[in-house]
């Protein structure tokens, strides 16, 4: 993560405390502890570079995990991307929960520049406004002609993005930098 990244956007979406949204309304303390336990195991597996660990994680995600556990996994993968879980990550970008989709898009973009372009395009087309903001954030983090084009197309339809792009442009103009460079 670059030093000038607007963390506030990502934080709003991807770093919401797990306990606040991911567990559902009525988990008993035992169940909560159960989730914490499994989340800890998932974190260990996600940090384990062995292919076997990746395979087990992929299988487990396919069988289904509580959203809180998925959030932990995706947070790890956002910081420590691993190519053997690309399919798993891309699959989670279609989760019904925007919080999971946002994390999955960040983890997808973290896999490399070509993946970032796809992740930005997916985020820009999302019906959730917060995830479309994420497209703008990631485009600034992973600049490319294709991501610029996506953001321009997005700005033409989304007033909030248009305002952000405009603010970028004005800031860059004031600092004498190309648009999008001022915040990096």
């Amino acid at each position, binding site marked *: 993560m670059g030093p000038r990244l607007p963390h506030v956007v990502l934080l709003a979406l991807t770093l919401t405390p797990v306990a606040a949204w991911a*567990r559902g309304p009525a988990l008993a303390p035992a169940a909560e502890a159960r989730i914490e336990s499994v989340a800890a195991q998932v974190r260990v597996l996600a940090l384990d570079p062995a292919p076997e660990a990746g395979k087990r994680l992929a299988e487990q995600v396919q069988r289904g995990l509580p959203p809180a556990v998925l959030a932990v996994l995706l947070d790890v993968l956002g910081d420590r991307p691993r190519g053997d879980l690309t399919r798993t990550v891309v699959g989670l970008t279609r989760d019904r929960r925007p919080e999971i989709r946002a994390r999955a898009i960040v983890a997808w973009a973290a896999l490399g520049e070509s993946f970032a372009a796809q992740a930005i395009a997916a985020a820009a087309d999302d019906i959730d406004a917060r995830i479309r903001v994420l497209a703008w954030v990631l485009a600034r983090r992973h600049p490319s002609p294709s991501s610029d084009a996506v953001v321009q197309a997005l700005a033409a339809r989304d007033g909030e993005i248009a305002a952000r792009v405009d603010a970028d442009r004005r800031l860059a103009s004031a600092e004498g930098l190309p648009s999008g460079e001022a915040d990096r």
Partner: protein
Amino acid sequence: MIARAAPMVLALSLAACTTVGALPAEASAFGNVVLLAESRCGPGDFGCDRAERRHGRRDPLVVLVEDGGLRAVDPLAGEVRWWRPLPVLGHPVANATSVFVPVRGNELAAIDRWTGELRFRVPLPGEAITGLTVTGATVVATMIGSTRGRSEVVALSGADGRPLWSRSSASALGVPAAKGKLVWVPQGRQVLALHRRSGRELARVDAPETGPDAPWIERVDVQGHAILAGRSEHWFDLRAATSGRGATERSIEAGYASPFPVFAGIDPGHGDGERTRLWIDFPADAGPPREAVLLGRRAVVAFRLAPDGTPARARWAWLAEDRREVVALDVGEHRVTLVREDGSLVVLARDTGEELDRLMGGESVRGALVLDMGHEPVSTEGRPRRVAEADVRAQLVAVLEDVDPRLLPVQKLSARLLWRDEAPSARRTIQALARGELRSEPGFAAEELRAHVLDLTHGAWGTEDDADASLRALSRRASFLHDEHPIVAPLAREVARSGRPEVVPHLVEHLLHPATRDTDLTEIARAIVVIDHPTALEGVATFVRRYHADPQVVHASRALQLCIDFLVAQARPRGESRPDATLARAVLHEVWSDPFTDPSLRAYIGPRLPTGDTKQADERLPPQLPEVLHMGL
């Protein structure tokens, strides 16, 4: 009981009658009878005037064609009115006073309709009779001519049989019909309109399809207000053709029976083929027909037709309780009369198929001419106006389950109607038939029926109305950049009715699409359950696995419960072992035993687990936390 003529029908029939003494009664051959008016005219009373006819009455009669002659039965009194020994060869016709019948020796006999006395028996010109019709006091016959390659149309007086006029033709002639002052005679790909009294040609109508490969017109039929020229399953309305509106050829789906049977030039008399026949209610506006009745040996099915001529919906079905066949079917305005091969009569209500009356028979009959039956309204007191859909389905299933191979045509129709029925139970019956779980006995008929049903199950299920438009709309996905925000619930309901398997991938994509609304999700899952097609299995399994541990999704809609229902249905044993069933069972068990599964969802799955898994599940209740094993650590 004496039935009275409906005023409108009477007026029309009188308008069609142009001469004093010319009775407006018409009766076509083959049991489909429209005897529009009748009279106090008694035996030999050919001079009945119009005023008397205007106050006339109907006189129902069933003329049974037996091996040795004709037997007339009064269906209201339940008595034999007369018996006339005659060597009958062709199909009889009748007007208000007489029954005319071709007899051996190429002769025409006229019998008094009330007494059965022989009025005359005269020779016909030519070699053999093609068809016979009567209008008023004129009998018209088409003949294979004595000169090679020529045909003749001859008119005789209905009073004494003397020849009135004749015409010769180099083309083969079909079965004629007459109405009012006109006689319609098929000639190749044209229909001639001849004046009844003189034989003068008044008009010549081309068939809509006039190319060299166009079929010849086989017959003209007068049915109600319609005058139809047709062959097999195709026909056009002659009134439309002569009114300047142009003739539109119409047709019905082939394969069950033909409304315009083909005789190849000679009237063979009542034969085996007539025991499977299709009656169509041709509308007065020359538009597409909307109602039909199929007789299939021992069964009768009444059904609605779609505008394209395909069977759309069953109205009722009747199945004989014994092996005796029906040899004649007459559909009146309110009643359907069946004549069975033992001479017994069964009268059904046309709207419900309810059996209203039954007369015992005795002698073996080849066919029958039913006159003036079914025009009297059936009392609605104490009886439903329509049959419950579930009862109609049960009647159709009873027809399908009968192992009598003679029922094959009517069974094919029944299968088609059940496949178009929107009730899942109807579709399951057809699928069971396709899999051989029903009618598994050996034999051509069972195999043929199964092949027919397999064809059906490869196509769309349901009515297909607007299904294409719904399918196109369903192929749209939510997209912010493309400004697509489809509301899927109504589409899902629509395609569920169509039942087309090609909608399943779209439904699954919407099920798994993150932008699908919770309300839409329920309807999508419901449609998947209704269509019950195995191609949805993988997507449904993904959905259940992905969200079974997410209380927010579990409680936001009924989608997960419905998906469980779908998996349970797929897991059900259906004969041979199937990978689909194995996968469905595995997912159910896996989700049920996952400690992270939402408790309400687990409670829903528990009682629905396949039998083999239930015991295993019970032994493991309540699920313990197997995180370490679960994670493979």
